């Protein structure tokens, strides 16, 4: 386990010594801050607009960072040949993948905390720092766990650009996968329904992690629903990381 943690710590160190992360973080904070000005231009409750924009910015930049850093996570190690001296040490390939994943998750979590602090500083200034918003940010972290795992899985057998496209595609499909259930209800029993059912289960149900509208409008969210989303997110991410490990186990490093 210590070897996995060593790889995770090194991955984190690499990210925090990279300027790209600060650039993304800077943009996110800028966008959160700009919600004040946007709220002036819009009709409606100023507080709700700031909250809605802020939460969306946190999610959007979190996902962008996850895709951007995730697809090059393993590819860079192979491309720069740093992996040669890692996997020839007494380190399992699965330990390597898991370490890289945990390192990126740690980076994204720190990123998320910084964005949340910036967001709450703004809310304090506006007098709207509600604790009810925190579960929505917590579920964003779970969304990031899944998106990072997707990026890792695709990048374990593909190039960064293709992996980024695949991950983005899976992310968008995952936001809308609830509509497969609607479609299924309109179809007659048969192959069409089976296909809908299949994709509903295979695609990541990322919409489960989105309770931003509810918390913005102070609509209570059942605890069971949040609990289910947490269990689903952890299980889905774990499965993806497991498949990434399997795919990596057989790989040649030329």
């Amino acid at each position, binding site marked *: 386990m210590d*070897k996995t943690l060593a790889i995770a710590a090194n991955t984190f160190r690499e990210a925090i010594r990279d300027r790209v992360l600060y650039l993304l973080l800077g943009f996110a904070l800028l966008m959160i801050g700009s919600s004040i000005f946007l709220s002036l231009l819009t009709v409606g409750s100023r507080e709700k607009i700031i909250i809605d924009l802020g939460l969306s910015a946190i999610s959007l930049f979190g996902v962008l960072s996850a895709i951007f850093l995730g697809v090059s996570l393993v590819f860079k190690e192979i491309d720069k040949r740093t992996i040669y001296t890692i996997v020839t040490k*007494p*380190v399992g390939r699965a330990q390597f993948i898991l370490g890289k994943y945990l390192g990126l998750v740690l980076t994204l979590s720190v990123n998320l905390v910084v964005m949340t602090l910036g967001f709450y500083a703004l809310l304090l200034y506006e007098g709207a720092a509600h604790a009810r918003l925190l579960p929505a940010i917590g579920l964003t972290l779970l969304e990031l766990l899944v998106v990072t795992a997707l990026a890792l899985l695709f990048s374990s057998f593909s190039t960064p650009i293709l992996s980024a496209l695949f991950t983005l595609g899976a992310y968008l499909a995952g936001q809308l996968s609830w509509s497969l259930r609607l479609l299924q209800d309109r179809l007659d029993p048969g192959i069409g329904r089976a296909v809908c059912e299949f994709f509903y289960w295979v695609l990541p149900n990322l919409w489960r992690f989105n309770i931003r509208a509810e918390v913005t409008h102070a609509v209570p969210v059942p605890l069971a629903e949040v609990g289910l989303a947490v269990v689903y997110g952890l299980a889905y991410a774990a499965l993806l990381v497991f498949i990434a490990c399997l795919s990596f186990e057989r790989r040649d490093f030329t």
Partner: protein
Amino acid sequence: MAVLEISGITKSFTSHLSMGRTQVLRGVDLKVEAGEVLGLLGANGAGKTTTLKTAVGLLRPEQGSVRLFGMPITDVRARARMGFLPENPYFYDYLSGREFLDFYARLCGIAPSRRAARVAEMLARVGLEDRADRPLRKFSKGMVQRVGLAQALINEPDLIILDEPMSGLDPIGRREFRDIILELRRNGKAVLFSSHILADAEALCDRVAILRGGKVAACGRLDSMLSDRVRFWEATLSRVDPASLNVPHEKIWQRGEQVVVRLQEAEQVDTLIEEVRRLGGTLRSLVPHRRTLEDLFLGELGYEAPEETKAPAAEKPPIPKSRG
């Protein structure tokens, strides 16, 4: 038991645009015993790097097997006793030398209490202690190679595999690398390395294996491959008239006051000594010119061995052969 045993490995790669496959290894057999230095030689594209990458588990052979300390290479216990330095290595350049080695020590499972001391010891061994806290991106190529050797040795391995370790090093760096390899051998470690630089191989290896077309073309102890093959003898004589010298020889020429005779056979040496005595001359020197590794290497690769000693231009042209 051999430290490393490679039996009949084959490997091919998909060619560009997936058009067909290129067979790189065609059944390589290689054994490294404890405490020996084995040099893997071969022309570019002979399969040296592919063989080494397969030996350390970066590539999986299509056929054949690799056993490291009697275990498959996928076994982490086997890898715990091995150190590897790839060709032209690249490491995490955002780390300092010390952070880098500490990370690798952690990967090798070295206890936290021993880690700092071990890292300091390795830095001193490769002569980087005063640059230990500089980031690797500011290291020269030679310094990267040294820190690379340090990571390969950090777990005190019993087998060290080095791919072209001397490339990119200046003469001092090469000398230091050689000294470290010789020290490893003295401590009973096995070393397998590939090289283009035959002088290094000749100075370091107990055995060499020459790869050609994805197969081991020749393998054996360096002393037995080279020593019993004297290519010719060269005798320097004085106070002798070359025309009156009645010895079968390959070449004879004058160098200043002295006469140089090149002989092909060992028996001719005795005849020459008797002749010099008879003519009242003096034998100044008698040098056996052995087969060098370069001759052996080029011979295995199908080239003719180069002329080792040529009569310098300033000397008089060879005297016509006299047959005795």
